[in-house]
Every structure is written in C-alpha cells, then in structure tokens.
C-alpha cells in the first residue's frame, strides 16, 4: 500500500479534474450526433445524474479506504467533490432546459413531485460545499469548514433516494446506489465506542 500511496502522491490533481470533466462534453456530443440513442435528452439527463452519484460514492469512499486499507486518496477528494457538483449541476441543467423546458412547469414540479423536491434539496445542500471548495474558505472558516462539509452526508442520502424514487416498478440498480451510500456513511458511525459505552452501561 505504501508504494501505491507513493505513486499516487506523484499523480497531479489536475489529471483527476481533466479526466473527470471530459465525459461531460463527450456525452453532449454523443447526444447531438445520435450516439445516445433515439431519446438523447433522457439519456443525457440520466448519464449525468448517474455519473454524479458515482463520483459522490468515490468521495464518500476516500476516508474509509484510508482507515481500513491505508490507501491515501485525500489529496483528490476536493477534485472529486467539485466534479460531483459539476455533474449534479449539468444533470439539473439538462432537466431544466432540455427536458421540462416550460418555466412554470419547473416550479410546479419542484413543489409537487417528491422525487424532484428531494433531488433539488440535495442540490441546495451541495451549493455551500461547492462555494467553499477553495483554500481561502478553508482558512477563513477554520473548524467550521469541516462541519459545513458534513452537509455532504444528507445530500448523498437525498441523492440516492432521488434515484430510487423515480424508478418504475421494483428496480435493483437504484437500490444498490442507495445501499452503497448508506453503507459508506455507516462506516463513519463510531460503532466500537458505542459498543464500549453500552458494555460499560451494562456492568454499571
């Protein structure tokens, strides 16, 4: 693992930014030229949304990977976070401009359709995270920056839920995303200390 970490340390962060952002224009080009099938609007909307969820899972996996396997990817976390937000924003933009199109319908959908409400809530929770993804904010906010960044946890659950809620019938894939997200968050709950406390309470 030591060696892997050494190699990773030499990998510049911009590589992650560039390779992460490339699928966005590529998919759009595919949509224009027929590469996304006969309903490119739906396909593009779903692809951006699914990429956002995958990147979100990558962000959430970084700290457990370090804790349990000693794999250090911390230096890429901001890049992955910013990319997640980028794809969430693109997903939203496709929905607004290409899919729903009618401004009055957009607000009606946000208020009336629970899966849209949940998705929008996740986006709103991610806004302050995106805005503070810079060294200036980290310095300025100090310890409050860390607590602010914890907004990613509820945003992740809402994001997974959003996908589950829009599926028709009983579908496995959205549930897998939600369970992976919940699982990664559970790893952060300090269960061992909870157990010790329970044991102490027992013996007392």
């Amino acid at each position, binding site marked *: 693992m030591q060696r892997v970490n050494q190699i990773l340390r030499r990998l510049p962060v911009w590589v992650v930014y560039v390779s992460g952002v490339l699928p966005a224009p590529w998919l*759009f080009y595919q*949509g*224009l*030229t*027929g590469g996304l*099938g*006969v*309903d*490119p*609007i*739906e396909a*593009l909307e779903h692809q951006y949304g699914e990429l956002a969820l995958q990147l979100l899972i990558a962000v959430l996996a970084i700290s457990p990977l370090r804790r349990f396997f000693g794999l250090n990817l911390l230096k890429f976390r901001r890049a992955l976070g910013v990319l997640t937000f980028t794809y969430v924003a693109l997903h939203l933009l496709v929905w607004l401009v*290409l*899919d729903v*199109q*009618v401004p009055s*319908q957009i607000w*009606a*959908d946000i208020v009336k*359709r*629970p*899966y849209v409400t949940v998705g929008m809530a996740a986006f709103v929770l991610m806004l302050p995270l995106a805005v503070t993804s810079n060294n200036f904010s980290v310095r300025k906010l100090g310890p409050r920056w860390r607590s602010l960044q914890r907004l990613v946890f509820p945003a992740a659950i809402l994001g997974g839920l959003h996908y589950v*809620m*829009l*599926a*028709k*019938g*009983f*579908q*496995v*894939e959205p549930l897998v995303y939600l369970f992976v997200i919940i699982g990664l968050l559970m790893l952060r709950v300090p269960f061992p200390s909870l157990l010790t406390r329970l044991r102490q309470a027992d013996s007392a």
Partner: protein
Amino acid sequence: MAHRWTNTLTHADVTPRAAFLNRRQMMAGLAGVGLAGLARGASAQEALEPNTWEEITSYNNFYEFGTGKDDPVKYAGALTTEPWSVKIDGLVDNPGEYDFKDIMSEMTVEERIYRFRCVEAWSMVIPWNGFELADLLNMAGVQEGAKYVAFETAVRPDEMPGVRYPILDWPYREGLRLDEAMHPLTIMATGIYGRPIPNQNGAPLRLVVPWKYGFKSIKSIVRITLTDVEPPTSWNMSNPREYGFYSNVNPDVNHPRWSQASERQIGGGLFAKRIPTLMFNGYDKEVAGLYEGMDLSEYY
C-alpha cells in the same frame, strides 16, 4: 370485417426512411457547427413526425427483458415466437389454444398509423399492421355475460432475463372493458412498416389501444380471458395510486410523479421541443363516448 376505421394519418405522414435519415444527418451536421438553434426550429415545425423503424425498434419498454430502454432490443432475440399459441378462455363459446398461424389465416391484416403515447411522457407515431381485436374475439364467440377482457404476456425465465427479478408481479397482465376491446381502433398488431413485428415490440402479436398509455398495449400475448369482473392489471397492482385500470391518455390528469400535459416526440434529437398532449391521445372524437358520464380524474 376489417376496414371499419379510416386513418387520419396516411402514408404521406410517414417520413420516407431515406429523407428522414438525410434530415437527421443534416441536423447533426448543423448542430456540429454550432447552428443548433436552426436545427431546433426545423424540428419544431414538424407537428406530427412519424418515426423510423430504428426508433420504433430500439427504444422500448418491455420489462421482461430488463428495465433499460435498450434492453429489449439487446435481449428479446432469445424469445421463441414459433410456434406460438394464444389460449382464449373464460366466457367464450369456443375456448381453447389457438395457434398463431391459424389465427392469421382467419384475420384480415391492414395498416394503422397511430400515435403512441407512453405514460413516461414520450411519444412516437407508428405504422402498425394488424387486425381488429373484435374480429379475434368474435371468432372465439363472446358470451352474453362477458364484460371485460384480460390479457397475459408470456413468462419464460430462460428467454426473458427480466422476469428473474420481481420488477413486477409476473406474468404481465392487462385488461380492457369489453366495449373498449371491441372498439374498431383497438387492434392486435403483428407487424410494423409491413414487416413482421420484432420481438422487442411484442412478437408475434400484441395489443394496440392508441388512446391509452402505452403500457396498456400488452406485448407477446399468450392468453386472453373474457370475464364478468374487472381483471387485475400489472401496473395497477404494482402502484394503484399511479396507474389506474383505464389509463386513458389525459393531459389534465397528472401522474403523481410527473405532468402529463405535454410530451417529447422521439426522434427530435437533443433539442426536441415538448408538444401538448392531446385528450385521448387525439382520438377523442372516436372514443370519448365510451366514457360519457364518468369522472376521468377518478377513473384514471
């Protein structure tokens, strides 16, 4: 007796395959050089653009083969459609297994160019070939007390990867009121563009009820039952709040998760403009009478 109904969409409405492909290439080219706005204007003018063979046969909801739109075209090839028989039972004079070939030898196949509106708010125009369901039901002899018709799709885990998962309570079931089933617009489709219907579109025979959401038009039918009670239907069983027995296309009654007021026509590309959805999918003149006096927001 066929030819009881005359198309309002004619062959002139079907875009010639070559012309359609050319236009698409042109649009793609324009978009490529940054004239996407021009392309968008061109597609918006086409009020009723019929779809190509490729569009009709590559973008399908047929959950027996998976929930992705491209799953049916990928996996439906495994479905054995020869031999095929349809069991017709319940309140009929001549119940039994009807061989598909025998059915076809009795029926007059004609072309029907219909709008097709999915409950997911997309639509196509499809040139079906088929016969009126009424002719098939009359062949079996509908008995006095029959009020409804129930349909079932084949369930073959060996050939249908989707039925290995409880996406829905298999087999897929649909139903119509007898007067809806006997309506001249209601057909059993066996072909598209004059070619045998591909498996992903419901080979060898499927229902087409053009004024209802697409999921009512059940595919690859193996059983038809005449009953005196409203039969259970798959999507209604799965989510009764979202899918009613009738499921008539109705822009005023929204799906709980999305609006039904407008739809996206497949084939318009990335900048396809939404168009308003028509009452009974544009067939109100023909079918509104079936629902006279019914509150359509209650019987959705």
